[in-house]
């Protein structure tokens, strides 16, 4: 009837299966509610390409040596990755808190850092899936070269990790549904729009350029764009340093909050 005595089943094995289970559950959630997770980014990207790419972009001409549609394509893909990595974790974790089923994980023999990794992996999975969907949409409108595939992969992974952790940070503190929409609406969206998705910061006046360099999303969008087009407004080494530093710092902060029980334990 009973499990082996404690200690005979290695904690490493429990953690490996536990992590796989969180990932499987998160993947299942993304696929189960595909109408909320995968379709809207495709519709939004299509509208962006029609309006900004075809209608307005034709009048703009070239930017950074590429036609406008090609120039904004990496930014639009990255925008979808950022908002979906963030959105997946914030809604999944806050939903679990709200419905109390976060307790299923809190009573299980899994350390908090592993629970954080599980949720972040879910955010990264959704970011990658949505990124793939938006890339397919992009290919209906324009051709985008891939100059440095490894840079594309590295920037996607780091960016989605950072924003998945951001979603978790938001969900830990949120006490109601208003509080999970506040940050994306008033902070994330403006930072994305002002992060060089639609323009090169070199077009801005000096003061606006200086201000833009404080925006971490600028580095993510430009690193990603450099992977595709080979053109960037920022120093790539610095961009990756920023992304890695953000990922490491946010992971440490979120795990510390979980260990303290902030927002999840009495």
């Amino acid at each position, binding site marked *: 009837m009973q499990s082996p005595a404690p200690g005979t089943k290695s904690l490493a094995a429990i953690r490996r299966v536990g992590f*796989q289970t969180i990932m499987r559950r998160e993947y299942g959630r993304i696929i189960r509610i595909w109408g909320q997770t995968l379709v809207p980014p495709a519709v939004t990207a299509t509208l962006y390409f029609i309006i900004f790419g075809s209608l307005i972009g034709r009048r703009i001409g070239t930017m950074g040596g590429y036609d406008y549609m090609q120039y904004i394509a990496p930014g639009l893909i990255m925008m979808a990755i950022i908002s979906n990595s963030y959105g997946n974790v914030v809604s999944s974790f806050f939903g679990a808190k709200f419905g109390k089923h976060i307790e299923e994980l809190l009573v299980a023999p899994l350390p908090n850092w592993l629970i954080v990794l599980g949720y972040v992996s879910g955010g990264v999975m959704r970011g990658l899936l949505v990124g793939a969907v938006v890339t397919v949409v992009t290919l209906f409108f324009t051709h985008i070269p891939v100059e440095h595939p490894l840079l594309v992969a590295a920037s996607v992974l780091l960016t989605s990790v950072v924003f998945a952790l951001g979603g978790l940070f938001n969900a830990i503190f949120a006490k109601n549904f208003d509080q999970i929409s506040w940050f994306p609406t008033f902070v994330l969206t403006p930072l994305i729009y002002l992060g060089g998705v639609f323009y090169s910061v070199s077009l801005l006046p000096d003061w606006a350029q200086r201000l833009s360099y404080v925006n971490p999303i600028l580095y993510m969008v430009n690193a990603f764009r450099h992977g595709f087009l080979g053109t960037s407004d920022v120093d790539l080494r610095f961009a990756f340093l920023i992304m890695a530093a953000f990922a490491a710092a946010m992971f440490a902060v979120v795990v510390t909050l979980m260990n303290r029980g902030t927002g999840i334990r009495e």
Partner: protein
Amino acid sequence: MKALSIRGLTKTYRNGVQALHGIDLDVEEGDFFALLGPNGAGKTTAIGIVMSLVTKSGGTVSVFGHDIDRELDLAKSCIGLVPQEINFNQFEKVFTIIVNQAGFYGLPRRLALERAERYLRQLQLWDKRDSIARSLSGGMKRRLMIARALVHEPRLLILDEPTAGVDIEIRRSMWGFLRMINAQGTTIILTTHYLEEAESLCRNIAIIDGGRIIENETMAGVIRKLAQETFVLNLRSAVAAPPPLPGYVSRMTDDHTLEVEVTREQSLNDIFARLSQGGIEVVSMRNKVNRLEELFMRLVESKGAAGARTG
């Protein structure tokens, strides 16, 4: 071996409410243990601390020798919890809930699927395996939480009000199931408001009130402490006036029903003899309230009165 050992456990919430005042508690391996107390006594807080859902303010807790401060994951791997409130994802399928929980405890996929089927069948939920959990009845949701807590076959099962709101037929079948898994070696700690349930199932008991353990002993020992019981006697024929029972406190609640308070020094035989002498025939008899309930109320009330005197 002790399944659970608690020493000097304290909890003060941020709002200043002290929920636990340094409780000590031991539960032996294999026991069926009742943890009773009125609402707000500290039962759920104590369980929450053992399960790491509530952060303790002081004291130590160990589960099968694993201190929760040093070996939390090992301690947690030994426990299955059936909480008081529904806490599964109501939008998931029943089968998925069980399989996922098995995974969180490290059971490989194939074993998780086997166990999920076994426990859903045992708790008569197999037909509902593809239903969305939200659509289950209240009793089914309780049984789902029991199946979920058992899927990793824990050595210690903690049930916090598992039969609240469950009809009597399902409650009785759950009792049978819990007796069976206890007989197979699982240590069980039960909190309940149905004292009949605790008396019927449990061998040892602790009563907690105001964050303190006010009684901790065997069920039989606790029941023996009951100094006085009230019996309800149903009479064959209508009686106009209360029969004379000198030395007993008695009253007629209607012309066929006599209530008699009997202390430990007194005897039911004596009452029956006197009633027979008076030509009164008793057709049936029962305790006015469950014995444990009577004792529980007296303990809690006497502590309340003492508190009022000292406070």
